[in-house]
């Protein structure tokens, strides 16, 4: 019988405790939870108030070094194709055209002073496929491919998720291709003429001997 009454007592006290907790939260709903980060000493003390973030209207800021959407600074890109090969999900597509000798100055140098030898008409990143692993960024020799803190880039059409970074329009690319072919043809013609006139082309320099293994 004493257990019967102690059960009723437990039920009453626990219900009262629970009701106080919910009521305290109910009246704290006029406040917002503080925005102290995990670094702050008060992080676990900010228990009172609403924690809802009304997402499209208010956004939690991403840190400046956040690794989200990829961006390629095409002016620094040398078209080396390393990012494409490194990508585990094959979300990068690159097409390159060799720069003709007379265009080298037009094509310019990277900000690091390296002469660019490739036009990059197509540099497409499918950000819908990209899993932001960062391997492409680490292999990039000119550090032109970077992650940006932009995390919110939803689209209604999935085709808009492919970002184009190429530095030539289609017409320009055609022109550059034609130019390269003309240069090639001119070179071949010159070589053929040289062969016909009996002058043997300059022999290729002999390959350097392979370095001997150390210690031998």
């Amino acid at each position, binding site marked *: 019988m004493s257990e019967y009454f102690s059960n009723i007592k437990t039920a009453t006290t626990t219900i009262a405790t*629970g009701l106080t*907790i919910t009521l305290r*939260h*109910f009246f704290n*709903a006029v406040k917002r939870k503080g925005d102290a980060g995990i670094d702050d000493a008060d992080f676990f003390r900010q228990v009172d108030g*609403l*924690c*809802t973030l009304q997402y499209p209207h208010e956004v939690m800021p991403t840190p400046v070094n956040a690794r989200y959407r990829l961006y390629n600074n095409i002016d620094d890109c040398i078209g080396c194709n390393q990012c494409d090969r490194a990508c585990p999900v094959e979300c990068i597509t690159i097409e390159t055209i060799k720069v003709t000798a007379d265009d080298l100055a037009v094509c310019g140098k990277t900000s690091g002073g390296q002469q660019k030898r490739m036009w990059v008409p197509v540099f497409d990143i499918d950000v819908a496929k990209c899993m932001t692993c960062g391997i492409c960024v680490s292999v990039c020799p000119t550090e032109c491919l970077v992650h940006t803190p932009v995390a919110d880039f939803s689209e209604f059409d999935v085709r808009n998720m492919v970002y184009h970074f190429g530095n030539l329009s289609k017409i320009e690319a055609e022109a550059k291709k034609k130019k390269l072919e003309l240069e090639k043809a001119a070179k071949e013609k010159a070589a053929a003429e040289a062969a016909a006139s009996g002058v043997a082309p300059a022999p290729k320099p002999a390959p350097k001997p392979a370095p001997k293994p150390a210690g031998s």
Partner: protein
Amino acid sequence: MSSSTSLNTWSDALSGFTIGGFPLGLIIVAAIPLVFIALYALTYGVYGERKISAFMQDRLGPMEVGPWGLLQTLADILKLLQKEDIVPTVADKALFVIGPLIMFVGSFLAFAVLPFGPAFIGADLNVGLFYAVGIVSLEVVGILASGWGSNNKWALYGAIRSVAQIVSYEIPASIALLCGAMMAGSLSMQHFNVVQSGPYGFMHFFLFRNPIAWLPFIIYFIASLAENNRAPFDIPEAESELVAGFFTEYTGMKFAMFFLAEYGSMFMVSAVLSIVFLGGWASPLPNVGGLALNTMTSGPVWGAIWIILKGFFFIFVQMWLRWTLPRLRVDQLMYLCWKVLTPFAFIAFVLTAIWEIYM
């Protein structure tokens, strides 16, 4: 009842209003509480439930439709109206269709005897309290019909649990209300209010006039939670184990009818609780010296405000409990009813009788 015929002049005059022999006034009288309840149940009940639950869980609740999400319920109604009204092929079609109707009608019939003011009551029956308790039992038939008619094991489980629960909890609920009836000496709902109103405000309420009244008050409140299938007694719905209980198979407006019936019953039991123990439309403010607060806050309009406020308060407590307590197991539910509430209800009954005879 002779005590309330004079109070009923306003509603008598309105119900006597006819246009060319057509009893328009009578229809208006019948429609006012129903319109109020429909508006309340759909808009403020659902909206309030969502907001209160959100605030208790540190959330914001609906915020997008209208300012602070005030039009969310309207959007929900539009959605429910557009939904396809599906009747399963293997369901017992007659029972399936009639189930929500019985529940809806059963829950709203009780509003006929709720006094919304000293001069406004749908039907001042001399057995008003008995009628209110009895007519709500009709819901059991609706629940069983819809659960059986769905031809779904979860629905049938939910319906059987619900029926067992409601039938069991009617016993402590009725005995607790009987304590109130003994204190008032009548079963008329209007008479409850008349004997509890007076110049000293809340001092006239049975809850404060009788030292034992808190016991039947709490017993009736707990039992009414169970009768409405509200948490912590929501095992007939038990979304985590039975999908949605007896209305698993329902869609569209039939589904909305169950919700209307539920929110209607919530207000009904809250109003009965405040009428029987807290004076219904009687003002709780006392006359303090020269300051006649009670006289100032009494009258037909104030009466409606007071009973609605008291009803809303108990609805808030119901929601508050719902978001605090976990669901009871079936055996715990029956233990609470038969081994705790019923014996205590009998004790309260005897003590109230002794108090009424000797004090």
